């Protein structure tokens, strides 16, 4: 597979590991946050931590659209699915995420709601065309990459005069979330946490370009590398960031120059700008309320806005109090520092944002990396061992 296999070459990975080890200052330490769950997944799935020196620590950021969606929005989606005549559709990743009382879209489906998995917004549109007697609501989630596809579907619905299609919009913005992390007291004021550099997600920048990162690289004096999702892309980005740190630079560099430009995809950007506006504030699971961090449909597109069509509940039930996601996402804590980790919080029963999808920090560590903190004689395998904690 061209442009994939070359970036998964194990031989090259070993060389890169050596190069990184050679460049990293043994006396110092490097705290690098990969913002995006796609990177978290690549790091875990390929075991890249084992290729990095001990003093290079990867901090798994909040960049998984499934993880960051607060429970209240999942409850709202289930509420929508339960309305008379509604067929709710969404990307597969959302189906298993539990809302309040552990009810997920999958469980709501089992109870009789009409809920469908789609692979593309156009599938949702086709569904609406094929069942004119039902209201098809697309539960839209994701960062800058999934927003333009949502916009295309609404445009087409408009062109087709489709009256039974609408969007429950939950699109969120990458730069605002990074800013929020850098603005947190632990990082900015107390200095208790080191966050030296960022890896930015390539696919987001295919749309927004690399330019939006320039402001805060400068403002917060942190280097940024836009990188692809293949393992060599990630390793290369780490190497580039170490070099910037060593050299005291804080620039935006582009590892994914094969498909990312400084300005991104103008066509997609203008479509989004035409159709969406900023929400004043939006709740992120694990991060709390983040100003200007999400989009909603403009008044002109109200007809396709599920939140305007239905009186969607706006509750925000809290996560388990013991959940340490907030601290984990800022690099203050690690998954195993949470006392729920692996005991009552697992991918099958996630209690917080970081466990919700395979791309979350806790889930990735549990699923791929938990052998690293296993102590001999302390079984974590699938055998029943002791009575229940909860």
């Amino acid at each position, binding site marked *: 597979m061209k442009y994939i296999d070359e970036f998964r070459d194990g031989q090259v990975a070993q060389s*890169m590991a050596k190069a990184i080890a050679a460049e990293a200052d043994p006396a110092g330490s490097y705290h690098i946050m990969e913002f995006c769950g796609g990177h978290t997944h690549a790091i875990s799935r390929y075991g890249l931590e084992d290729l990095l020196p001990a003093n290079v620590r990867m901090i798994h950021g909040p960049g998984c659209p499934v993880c960051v969606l607060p429970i209240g929005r999942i409850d709202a989606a289930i509420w929508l699915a339960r309305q008379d005549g509604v067929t709710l559709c969404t990307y597969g990743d959302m189906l298993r995420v539990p809302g309040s009382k552990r009810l997920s879209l999958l469980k709501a489906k089992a109870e009789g709601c009409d809920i469908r998995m789609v692979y593309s917004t156009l599938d949702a549109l086709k569904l609406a065309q094929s069942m004119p007697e039902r209201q098809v609501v697309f539960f839209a989630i994701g960062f800058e990459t999934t927003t333009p596809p949502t916009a295309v579907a609404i445009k087409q619905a408009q062109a087709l005069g489709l009256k039974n299609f609408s969007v429950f919009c939950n699109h969120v913005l990458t730069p605002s979330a990074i800013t929020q992390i850098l603005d947190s007291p632990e990082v900015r004021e107390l200095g208790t946490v080191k966050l030296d550099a960022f890896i930015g997600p390539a696919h987001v920048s295919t749309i927004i370009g690399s330019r939006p990162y320039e402001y805060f690289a400068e403002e917060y004096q942190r280097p940024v590398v836009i990188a692809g999702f293949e393992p060599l892309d990630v390793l290369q980005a780490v190497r580039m960031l170490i070099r910037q740190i060593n050299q005291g630079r804080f620039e935006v560099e582009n590892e994914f120059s094969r*498909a990312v430009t400084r300005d991104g995809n103008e066509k997609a950007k203008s*479509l989004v700008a035409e159709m969406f506006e900023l929400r004043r504030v939006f709740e992120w699971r694990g991060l709390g309320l983040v100003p200007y961090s999400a989009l909603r449909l403009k008044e002109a597109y109200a007809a396709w806005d599920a939140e305007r069509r239905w009186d969607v509940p706006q509750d925000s039930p809290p996560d388990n109090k013991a959940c340490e996601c907030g601290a984990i996402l800022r690099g203050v804590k690690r998954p195993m520092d949470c006392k729920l980790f692996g005991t009552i919080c697992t991918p099958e029963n996630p209690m917080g944002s970081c466990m919700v999808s395979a791309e979350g920090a806790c889930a990735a560590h549990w699923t791929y990396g938990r052998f690293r903190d296993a102590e001999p004689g302390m079984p974590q395998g699938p055998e029943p061992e002791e009575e229940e904690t909860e």
Partner: protein
Amino acid sequence: MCLALPSLVTELLADDNAKVNLGGVTKTVSLALVSDVKVGDYVIVHVGYALSVIDPEEAAQTLALFREMEQAEPAQ
């Protein structure tokens, strides 16, 4: 969720769609978000849409960088 895969455009279809190929698997994707795509181009596919076109020269340069590093490394 965060899949973004380089796929070869093998055929341009009606309604701004294209057939793409990934490792022998073909799929129809939308070109609504990109311009001037040709058969033979590689596009980054995400949730059924092409988000951008791969620049082969830039890709070659990135790979060249990797190779340099490998050669720089002393043989074991």
